[in-house]
């Protein structure tokens, strides 16, 4: 049955015909191999182990956040005055996978000193898990001095303040290609009706009013929730908005349903949106404004937060003030005026990272000084009431910052305030289904079902 094995065996792999010999040779080699290995593994460390890690955690504050690269550089630039003054080293780490990481690190017992949370929901989870240090009197004094009260509330969990807001954004803004508008004689509308009149004028001229896209990878859907929030604020007012965030007003409520219907008048009308619903669903958020800057423009307006300027083509970014105009999304019900909706990063401190240095850095973040340099280099808005608006690098940013600080009503992005299972779950999915043509009542019931979880 078996061939005469040793004779035919490949000599390279089995160059010995006797097991005994195999054993001997192998034994000797192994012994010398072990000797070498042990020498290296044992002696090398002793020779090399000159620098044992003697970390000095006391003068270093580790900060972890979601913003990276260019934004991280600007943040580092902005906090330089603090470093120069105190000699404390700030180590900033950023990662786009921040959401997952901060949670794993907190639960795994390895949190940074301070972290910048883009969503209040994350803050509530970490505070609820007992990971965070409540703000102390000195920090609270800075907050009371430098911020409108709404920011203190937004940084609080169950009545205890934890978070200090730094860079924020304003989302209820509509952007347009200024030169093309001037050539056509279009004027920014003041009311919702004027806006619809303008849209119809555009359609009559053969133009498509809106550029829009909601694809955002693992976060697809948020662009739609922003629109709904803006409309709810304008039709039902801030009180209903606040109760909606708490689910005291459910999604199936007629007032919320109305907001979807109003959005549907724009989004589901193929004349109003560039590329119709297919394009709306599949165009990514950064690509969405680009049709405005084609020649001639394929679309004439785009509603997005102030961070949108970073997505504009380079030639537009270089001449922002000449090329781009902006107006606040108009009022619908005059009773509620023109409220501003937005978001922002809040800094919180972990119990395990509670050091005097971390505390003084937190207090620094509560002052305009920590934002001034960033405002000068562009790409960020700050909420400080006592900020110097002339520091902003462009007229456009100055105006949005002013709109943000002076808005009679400011509300935080509702989907970020709702539990993630709704705000980053069924609400996102519901927006996509709504655009995809599903029946509105089914969509609303589906979104509402997220609350039961």
């Amino acid at each position, binding site marked *: 049955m078996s061939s005469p094995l040793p004779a035919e065996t490949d000599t390279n792999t089995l160059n010995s015909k006797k097991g005994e010999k195999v054993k001997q040779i192998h034994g000797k080699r*192994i012994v010398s*191999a*072990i000797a070498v*290995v*042990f020498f*290296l*593994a*044992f002696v*090398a*460390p*002793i020779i*090399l*182990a*000159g*620098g*044992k*890690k003697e970390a000095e955690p006391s003068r270093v504050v580790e900060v972890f956040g979601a913003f990276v690269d260019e934004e991280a550089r600007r943040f580092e630039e902005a906090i330089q005055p603090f470093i120069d003054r105190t000699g404390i080293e700030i180590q900033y780490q950023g990662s786009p996978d921040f*959401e*997952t990481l901060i*949670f*794993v690190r907190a639960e795994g017992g390895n949190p940074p000193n301070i972290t910048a949370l883009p969503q209040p929901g994350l803050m509530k*989870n970490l505070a*609820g*898990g007992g990971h965070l240090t409540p703000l102390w009197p000195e920090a609270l004094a800075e907050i009371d001095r430098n911020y409108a009260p709404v920011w203190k509330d937004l940084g609080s969990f169950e009545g205890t303040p934890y978070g200090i807001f730094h860079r924020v954004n304003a989302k209820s803004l509509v952007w347009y290609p200024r030169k093309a508008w001037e050539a056509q004689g279009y004027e920014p509308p003041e009311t919702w009706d004027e806006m619809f009149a303008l849209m119809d004028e555009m359609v009559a001229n053969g133009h498509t009013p809106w550029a829009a896209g909601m694809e*955002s*990878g*693992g*976060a*697809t*859907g948020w662009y739609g929730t922003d629109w709904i929030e803006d409309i709810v604020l304008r039709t039902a007012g801030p009180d209903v908005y606040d109760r909606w965030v708490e689910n005291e007003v459910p999604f199936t409520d007629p007032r919320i349903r109305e907001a979807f219907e109003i959005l549907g008048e724009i989004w589901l009308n193929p004349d109003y949106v*560039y*590329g*119709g619903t*297919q*394009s709306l*669903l*599949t*165009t*990514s958020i950064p690509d969405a404004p680009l049709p405005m800057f084609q020649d001639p423009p*394929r679309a004439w307006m785009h509603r997005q937060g102030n961070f949108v300027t970073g997505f504009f083509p380079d030639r537009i970014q270089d001449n922002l003030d000449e090329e781009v105009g902006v107006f606040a999304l108009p009022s619908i019900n005059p009773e509620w005026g023109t409220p501003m909706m937005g978001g922002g990063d809040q800094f919180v401190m972990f119990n395990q990272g509670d050091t005097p240095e971390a505390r003084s850095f937190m207090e620094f973040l509560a002052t305009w000084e920590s934002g001034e340099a960033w405002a000068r280099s562009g790409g960020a808005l700050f909420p400080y009431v006592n900020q110097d608006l002339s520091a902003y690098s462009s007229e456009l940013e100055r105006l949005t910052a002013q709109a943000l600080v002076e808005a009679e009503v400011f509300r935080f992005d509702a989907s970020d305030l709702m*539990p*993630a*299972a709704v705000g*980053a*779950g069924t609400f*996102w*999915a519901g927006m*996509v289904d709504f655009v*995809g043509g599903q029946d509105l009542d089914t969509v609303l019931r589906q979104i509402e079902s997220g609350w039961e*979880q």
Partner: protein
Amino acid sequence: MKGDSSARKGSTFLSVPVVAIGRIAASVFVPIVAFVVLWAGFIFLRDSEASRGVIGIVAVVWGVGGVIGLFVIANWLVEKLPVLWRTRIQPFVFVGPALVILGWYLFLPTVRTLYLSFFDARGQEFVGLANYIYAFTNSAMIESFVNNLQWIVIGTGGSVGFGLLIALLADRSRYERVFKAIIFMPMAISFVGAGVIWRFVYAFRPAGEAQIGILNAVTTALGASPQAWLTIRPWNTFFLIVILIWLQTGYAMVLISSAIKGVPSQLIEAGRIDGASEFRVIRSIVIPHIMSTIVTVATTILILSLKIFDIVFTMTNGLYGTEVMASLQYKQMFRFFHYGRGSSIAIVLLIAVIPVMWYNLKRFTEREAF
């Protein structure tokens, strides 16, 4: 004579315990030294601030040398045991290290997950089977069962089928290396890169505009209107599975190809001399010979498609009816912070793989070992 003999006896009498003690001492001493050495390496690697290169080299030596050293020492100790015990214990010298590491990194966390799956969102209150009832009744989960089944059947079938086809063809081509390298290339592209690639394949621009996605460029060139491919139910899951096949065929091909290289050429030549057609040679000589590799490759890709996550998460976020189990698990765990549900879905995944385990175990049991 008598004294002589007794003296000799005495020396034997004395030397036995000395040798025995020596042996025992050595048996204790050597492992202790080994342990100390490994520990020193561990501390060095943990705390050293030497340059990366040095640490890297020490790590390889420590890791590989440490493992070999432990094997040799453990084996040396076991060899001293009586034969019966030796045959019983020696296999653990081989499988032990892997079992210990697996136990720590994966088995214990799995047990913890099983435990957490009976608790509420924060893992504090016992909720019985509530999370499992959720997992089997939630509409997104039910949708994901159907989708995962498609992933398993089409994804595994496609990757293994193409991998086998290419491996067989390439084996007969002079340009084997070039072809194999091209098919392999997608594996080398990071997942972020692959995501971009496929966005460029499925990209949508409204009719009348220049298409930047190749699929829509072809569609419009043929006179049809452009499509938003990833939103078209139920075909969008298939479009996502294509990405998996594109990525994983290289994996199947490499393994199957190396198994084909293991088919003895005498067998193939013998078949050819007998006048069998090339197709017959493949079917009745090559395929049976590489069957176990095909099963292995299929098993691993099947498991991969069962826990497929990143393709769905980054391309569609599970919207438009493309949701799968692993992305729901991820969302529950890291986005909605519901430990209990996230854990229960992980356990459901584990249960879903039972048929595969059973099949592999059946083949495993049929084996004879020494």
